[in-house]
């Protein structure tokens, strides 16, 4: 049954790319150089965004289920650190997705959608690096949301609202350069930009070479800040667990 789900995931990603590209084609019918960006670039952006999304999937209710079932107490006693366990679990399943979902989808999309190659080889390498950082930003952000399960019984609402914000603000569905200026300025102050938009912009050569360093430093900075916040929450959660006896 699992295998069917992976297979369905491949189809899903392809269809999403296909349909979103169709919408963008319709948009470009009236103006073939919208805001100085060519249709081809937008098409590649959309495809990359959905391809990345199919790996940036994390187990949002893993910690919640541990907390509600009370298994967390016994997990904490195990010699391996619980946080390392959760992290490796998610990374492991993402790596698995790279093999099972991303590779087939990528091969098919290259043929189907005529994706642009990276702007340059160098940008290609930097894209890969930046995408890994984007994954970590999302992971740290998610971890903070997951931690809330120590205080709230159900985290469905928070997780869903988080997902919604990530979808709109991180450039997963729409290239951020099409956003109104005020909103774009605001997004630049948040970690969302670092998740999908920064890596894809680097791939497309939309970030001037001089600014790439800043963009990547910004990603790292967000990882540090979010990880720190997650760490503090984790300590508070452990404290709470001890007080209540699990």
């Amino acid at each position, binding site marked *: 049954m699992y295998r069917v789900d992976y297979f369905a995931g491949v189809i899903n990603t392809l269809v*999403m790319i296909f*349909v979103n590209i169709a*919408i963008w084609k319709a948009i470009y019918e009236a103006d073939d150089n919208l805001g100085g960006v060519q249709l081809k670039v937008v098409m590649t952006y959309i495809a990359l965004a959905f391809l990345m999304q199919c790996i940036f999937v994390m187990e949002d209710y893993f910690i919640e289920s541990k907390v509600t079932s009370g298994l967390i107490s016994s997990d904490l006693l195990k010699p391996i650190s619980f946080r390392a366990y959760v992290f490796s679990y998610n990374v492991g399943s993402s790596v698995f997705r790279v093999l099972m979902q991303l590779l087939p989808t990528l091969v098919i999309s290259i043929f189907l959608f005529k994706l642009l190659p990276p702007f340059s080889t160098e940008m290609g390498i930097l894209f890969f690096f930046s995408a890994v950082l984007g994954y970590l930003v999302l992971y740290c952000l998610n971890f903070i949301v997951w931690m809330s399960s120590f205080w709230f019984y*159900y985290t469905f609402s928070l997780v*869903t609202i988080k997902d919604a914000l990530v979808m*709109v603000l991180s450039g997963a569905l729409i290239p951020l350069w099409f956003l109104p200026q005020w909103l774009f300025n605001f997004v630049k102050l948040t970690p969302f930009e670092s998740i999908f938009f920064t890596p894809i912009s680097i791939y497309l050569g939309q970030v001037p070479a001089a600014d790439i360093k800043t963009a990547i430093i910004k990603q790292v900075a967000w990882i540090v800040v979010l990880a720190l916040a997650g760490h503090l929450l984790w300590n508070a959660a452990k404290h709470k667990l001890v007080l209540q006896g699990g």
Partner: protein
Amino acid sequence: MEHKKFSKLELLKLSLKYSKLNLKCTLEYKFDRFFTTLAVFVREMVSIAVMYLILTRVISIKGWQMNEMFFLYSFLFLSYCIFIFLFTGIRDFDNMVYTGELDRYLIRPLGLLYQVISARVDYCATIGHGAVGVILFLSTYNSVGIDWNFRNIVYYILALLGGVIIQTSLFMVSSCFSFWAVRTTNLRNLIFFNSRRFAGYPISFYPGIVQKMLIFAVPFAFVSYFPSEYFLHKPDLSVFWHGCLYLTPVVGIIMFTLVYIFWRLGLKSYSSSGNSMY
């Protein structure tokens, strides 16, 4: 005890009773359910927000303006909201089979489908989707240039109900598979919610194959596109047969009839095999 058939009125009263109990359940966890509703609302607003962001930038796509697109989208949300309000049980059917709730319904002196439908109401989803639909409708019904005369109002209501039946039938197909202990929920959600998302845009935006899919396979075109074209008469309608504008209720009824036959078949199979996979 002598068994008399239940009258329509009695069944209606009983349904109300069920909805009241469901409301009571929802209110048991007021705080949590409030945030769930909010989350559903926010989640559904994502596609609206993306549409809004694109259209503030490009003003119109293929001659469709923002208020017209939102009007089209409102059909999807309003009909889904009614569907959930009336037929939550059909959405959750596989769960009823899995937990054995279905067996419990079978030892009661009431129809099975009636009980499946009445037994559950997901108020969170109803309000979450409904709120998006109402906001979209209220902000556009006046500005898209519709003369809300009697004829149009009747058309609107019939189209909306047709849309409800179409979505009910789509969900019910997947429910029927549960009778054979085949789980199709994931696949169903994938097909249903993606198609629904596409149907948020006029189908003329898509290549022919997607259009055909949305007309013949997962007929969401009759839920949103054709009903809104009836009111808006955009030039892109010219490639489709004009009769499609009036077909929504017909498509709904045909689909439901076919699915109901499938359902009877499934029930027959269930009573000979039980909930074996689970």
